[in-house]
């Protein structure tokens, strides 16, 4: 039940919040969806670095370095399911930690997990469509890749998924006229990400 904190990303790069319900106080609009665990780096304590990154520019810079799922798999955005599968298989085999050079298990594990995420998203036509939509708006990086995994294991467990999807597309419809610029600011993307979270609440 969306009860608070639905934010509509505006053209303005400064923070702009709309709550669709007044039942709860409007949340502090600061972005809250930076990857808290920041992948496997937690083990080495670099969560500190990421979690403490309050510098928008630095964070945005970091985000940009992340490859899209297509770039990660090295295939065109028009790539067929066969190409996706082929690319995934090659990379999964290449980066499986069991075949990593000595001392690089961590690095390979991280790459392997990223490739896995990309494959699981792009090999599912529904999730791929969602991802493509987000990418067209430059939102794919703001959304945590894990965003697309949330339905995993939930199939057949009620219609929450449909509801959630229709909510999402409604939000996108409402927001698309405002954020059709190719390059949104980091703040706008973060709000977009927050919106993704709050519509699940």
């Amino acid at each position, binding site marked *: 039940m969306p009860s608070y904190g639905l934010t509509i990303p505006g053209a303005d790069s400064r923070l702009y919040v709309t709550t669709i319900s007044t039942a709860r106080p409007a949340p502090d609009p600061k972005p809250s969806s930076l990857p*808290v665990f920041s992948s496997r780096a937690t083990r080495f304590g670099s969560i500190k670095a990421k979690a403490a990154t309050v510098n928008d520019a630095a964070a945005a810079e970091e985000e940009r370095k992340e490859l899209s799922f297509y770039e990660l798999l090295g295939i065109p955005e028009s790539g067929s399911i066969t190409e996706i599968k082929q690319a995934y298989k090659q990379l999964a085999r290449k980066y499986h930690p069991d*075949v990593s050079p000595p001392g690089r298990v961590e690095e390979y594990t991280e790459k392997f997990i990223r490739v896995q995420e990309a494959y699981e998203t792009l090999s599912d036509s529904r999730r791929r469509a969602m991802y493509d939509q987000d990418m067209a708006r430059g939102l794919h990086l703001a959304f945590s890749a894990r965003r697309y995994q949330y339905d995993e294991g939930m199939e057949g467990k009620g219609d929450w998924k449909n509801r959630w999807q229709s909510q999402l597309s409604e939000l996108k419809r409402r927001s698309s006229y405002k954020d059709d610029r190719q390059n949104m600011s980091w703040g706008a993307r973060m709000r977009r990400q927050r919106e993704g979270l709050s519509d699940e609440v």
Partner: protein
Amino acid sequence: MAEAAYTVASDSETSREEKSSCTFPETTIGIDIGTSQCRVAIWNGSQVEILKNSRNQKMMSSYVTFKDGTPSGELSNQLSADHDMLSGAAIFNMKRLIGRVDTDPVVHSSKSLPFLVQTLDIGVRPFIAALVGNFWRSTTPEEVLAIFLVELREMAEIQLKRPIKNVVLTLPVSFSRFQLTRIERACAMAGLHILKLMPEPTAVALLYTLYAKQSGFQSTDRNVLIFNMGAGYCDVAVSVTAEEAPRGISEIIALTGSAIGGEDLLQNMMRHLLPNAENLLTSHGVDEIKSKGLLRVATQNAIHSLSSQNSVQIDVDLGNGMKICKVVDREEFEEVNRAVFDECASLIIQCLHDAKVKPEDLNDVVLVGGCSYIPKIKNLVMNVCKKEELYEGMNPLEAAVSGAALQGYVASGVHDPFESVDVLSIQVTPLSVGIRADGNNFVPIIPRNTTIPAQREMLFTTSHDNQAEALVIVYEGDGEKLEENHLLGYFKIEGLPPAPKGVPQVRVMMDIDASNVLRVLAAVLMPGSHVPINPVLDVRMPTVDDGHGWCAEALHRAYGATQDLVSVKRI
């Protein structure tokens, strides 16, 4: 730097992280500890060598006899195994008992064994004892397994003429992570160092991949179904075998497994042959132990005979005026065990479904394990998989141990100049892992059949206004009900700031690394902040110990629903 993560270490003796970080250019043996039989093998660079005991046998009965307080594993033949079984001094079926609490149905069905298995049904470890003279000498499955493993190690050392430390073990698909820690403990007690634990059918799949590679791949991808049924467990895997020159790949797509096996066939048959067997089977007087030992041996022999002939004459004097004189035919045996066979079929159907592979898409079906000789098993596997014939290329009793030996060779980092055994096994999680949330429900975070290493995150929130603490209770399994799953551990998130329910974001991440170590991380964020309010909790699972069966209940009694979590996306 306030955000340093802390780790709550579990009680496992050895850190698998340490193990994986160093390479061992030493010999690694593969061990297939079966419920009833056991095999040890090494890969000698070009082929599998199954090690033999001092009696020149490749197959050892998995049991340990307790005599005068000094237990000894006997790598002996079936005859002396039968004899020791009659006295109540031998402990066997360790693999069925290890890591299970006394509320587990598998433990309950073990009460009919000649040695003592007692349950209090409160969720603690069962009381297990061997009859030594006039005393019941208590023991644990870990201890028995460790004694047995020491024997196996010594046997391997004598034969290979070098010290052995590293092993790859094959285990049932349905083993929980808690059961894996018990296996690790037994290995540590026996001075063995686990390089890898493999679900049994995945070891078979790896061997299949090597054979496919050696014979030259006919097509790019081959879908293969492995059905492995032994005395204690039945496992199914669907694997894709492919070549990524020069490497052969076995990519596991789906795994299913259950604690059903030849032991169940045997028990059903014993009850069928002796209709009022219950009294006899549950008593542990000296005479009764002998009687049920005799019944067990006679029934076992009859079942073996029925694999090659249509009917069998059973003629046995159990003592105390109990005699069985009966002809049993194959049809009768199949009828008595219909439920077991039905479950076998449903495991295959489930596995194909999970793998999203149709029977017609299977290139090969591999049937292995002690039960593979039973005609009914052969038929049902061929029926469900819609195959006229099964893969013939491997010895059903040696496939798992050969795969383990092969994986050991690969994992030990021995350089292979010709890349003849360059194979890779890509594994999946056999069971889902998740937490208790949304009332008394199990919410999976990493679903079963997820390729590992894996990492998944889910968002939860509080269930009460101003909830100051939240319990993260970690379970593993695929049961509909929470209680049907295995409790792995629990921890508390403290210091939640006062807020209406549904406001705090509780992020739970699960991480399974390259060594199959599971870590659960939990962080709390308040809306508008991207810095966790407290240091992130990082807990290595499992944390529970042997008394864990009643933990869940005790937690519930102590806290009720006051510290519950609610998953965010389900509302």
